[in-house]
């Protein structure tokens, strides 16, 4: 789509916005429409050149922005915005239906609000969008019991005591966490909070909390506790993590689907070379053992060596019949 067809939909929303918000300020409107002030003024100048056939001064849209206050007149023809497109309405409807699926998220009032918004949008958008949005579904894992406790702690502003399982390290650790919010990413609920053990903001999967208890201590995350940016996914390896190269057979391709990879190269016949970053050597060793005959560590050699050592120690259990004694 060309730039002018991007600009036109914006103008067809801008004019109605200004009509229904007479006297709006330039900076505020620019922000809402994601424009610089200069771009907004340029849009206003363009609108000012347009109007009804005849194009005498009386036919043209009259817009002024003296002192940054935008006033608009003579634009009744396009005073209402264009109706929602199928994609626009569907994007909202699918997301709203997903919220509806997450019953523990919603207080009774929220559920009710959701149903009302869905009905209103479906009416405003027409049949197409309602049909598409019922064909696109985001499943939400049924939230574990922990959610109720986590929500209570958030509401009451209390610290939580967790017994948390980390499968990558096969480790259960006690944690004290000041809860900040619940993040549902790709259908899975997490608690985001300040972890006193890690001394950092961490995400905890709710279904991996073996125990969760509200402490009689007010939650008081330190000032540097900023919410994590999850827009690029929940797991983001850090550039300082170790770079590892694996080769997998077709039966080991799932690695590239499960973990964020730096690079994936097809080697033919369904084989892959996968480069990924990992913080934790223990996790990598487990991954390599799990892959077994369906993948191998190419680099670094020291990791390959560690994997062989672990495999050999595990095999020894099966070699020695006298291990019983």
């Amino acid at each position: 789509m060309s730039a002018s067809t991007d600009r036109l939909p914006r103008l067809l929303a801008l004019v109605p916005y200004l009509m229904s918000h007479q006297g709006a300020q330039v900076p505020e409107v620019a922000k809402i429409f994601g424009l610089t002030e200069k771009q907004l003024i340029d849009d206003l100048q363009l609108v000012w050149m347009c109007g009804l056939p005849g194009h005498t001064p009386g036919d043209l849209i009259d817009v002024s922005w003296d002192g940054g206050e935008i006033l608009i007149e003579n634009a009744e023809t396009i005073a209402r915005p264009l109706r929602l497109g199928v994609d626009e309405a569907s994007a909202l409807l699918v997301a709203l239906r997903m919220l509806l699926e997450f019953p523990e998220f919603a207080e009774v009032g929220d559920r009710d609000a959701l149903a009302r918004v869905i009905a209103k949008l479906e009416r405003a958008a027409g049949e197409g969008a309602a049909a598409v949005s019922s064909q696109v579904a985001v499943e939400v894992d049924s939230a574990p019991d922990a959610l109720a406790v986590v929500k209570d702690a958030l509401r009451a502003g209390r610290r939580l005591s967790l017994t948390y399982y980390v499968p990558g390290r096969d480790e259960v650790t006690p944690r004290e966490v000041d809860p900040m919010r619940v993040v549902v990413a790709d259908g899975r609920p997490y608690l985001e909070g300040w972890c006193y053990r890690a001394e950092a903001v961490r995400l905890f999967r709710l279904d991996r909390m073996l125990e969760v208890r509200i402490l009689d201590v007010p939650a008081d995350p330190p000032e540097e506790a900023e919410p994590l940016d999850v827009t690029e996914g929940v797991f983001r390896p850090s550039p300082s993590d170790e770079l590892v190269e694996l080769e997998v057979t077709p039966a080991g391709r799932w690695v590239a689907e499960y973990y964020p990879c730096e690079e994936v190269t097809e080697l033919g016949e369904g084989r892959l070379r996968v480069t990924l970053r990992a913080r934790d050597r223990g996790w990598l060793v487990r991954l390599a053992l799990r892959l077994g005959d369906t993948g191998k560590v190419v680099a670094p050699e020291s990791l390959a060596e560690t994997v062989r050592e672990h495999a050999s120690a595990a095999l020894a259990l099966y070699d020695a019949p006298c291990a019983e004694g």
Partner: protein
Amino acid sequence: MSRRKTERLLNLVICLLATRRPLSAEQIRQAVPGYDREGDEAFQRMFERDKNELREIGIPIEVHKDPWEDDPGYIIRRQAYELPEITLEPDEAAVLGLAAQVWQRASLAEAAGGALLKLRAGGVQTDESGLGTLELRVDTRDPAFPALWEAVRDRRAVRFDYRAAGSGAVLTRTLEPWGVVSRRGRWYVVGFDRDRGEPRVFRLSRIAGEVTPVGKPGAVRVPEGVNLREMVGYRDDMTLPERSALLRVRRGTCEGLRQLAQRVEPGQGEWDEVELVFADPERLAGWLASLGADVQVISPPDARDAVIRRLKGAMAS
């Protein structure tokens, strides 16, 4: 792109909205600045392109063919163009604001943002502060997603290359898509597989290369009562019988495994005896192999052999 063109298109929209009767191309040429300077042929081409671009952004241009007139007439009906009146209560605005932030990638994030802008322009109070302590995100990172969304939207069949799970063999599939479903962070497309002549589920991450539309839009019919989620939730290993494995687990290790065990009892030396229920021996073997020398399979033999095979594979690599 050219400012003059945007001006012309905006004037065209206003002209077609303001008119009471359909206007012929010639009348439009006289009324809309920017067309008047062009020669006949150049004008025709330009007008065709402009109509298409307006339709692309969802502007409903009606064409009237009057038997008494040579030329068709054009008009935009206000009722088809305008966003209907809509008002939101504050609690409704809050959930809508939350919903608008769900999508993480360009196509749907832009669509949701565009919808919110139109609603605001229509005087609807929206609230993008969300619900404070809740954030929801859905990723559509698979390159195949946009094309499949469009195919589902347009009810159009598609063709793509698909890599089989185990073998990695790539086969071309032709699918009548019924819907797309996200389950545990992965996207699936469900539909009628024309090559196999039956309903099938495909994982988007295994689609190799482009998804191309096949045939006309509107050709796909979604059967009544089809349950997309159920189709995606079905796994082959659900048909495998559940069995019990006997393991030796080193004391103080394998916490996750102990959590899921049916029974844990102290054994000899530094070992505990653990009973675990499983269905797919290969799935179990992958997990147990990853735990290395902290676990040993006593029975059944097929699970034991599968673990040994994996460990030998890891040794050889």
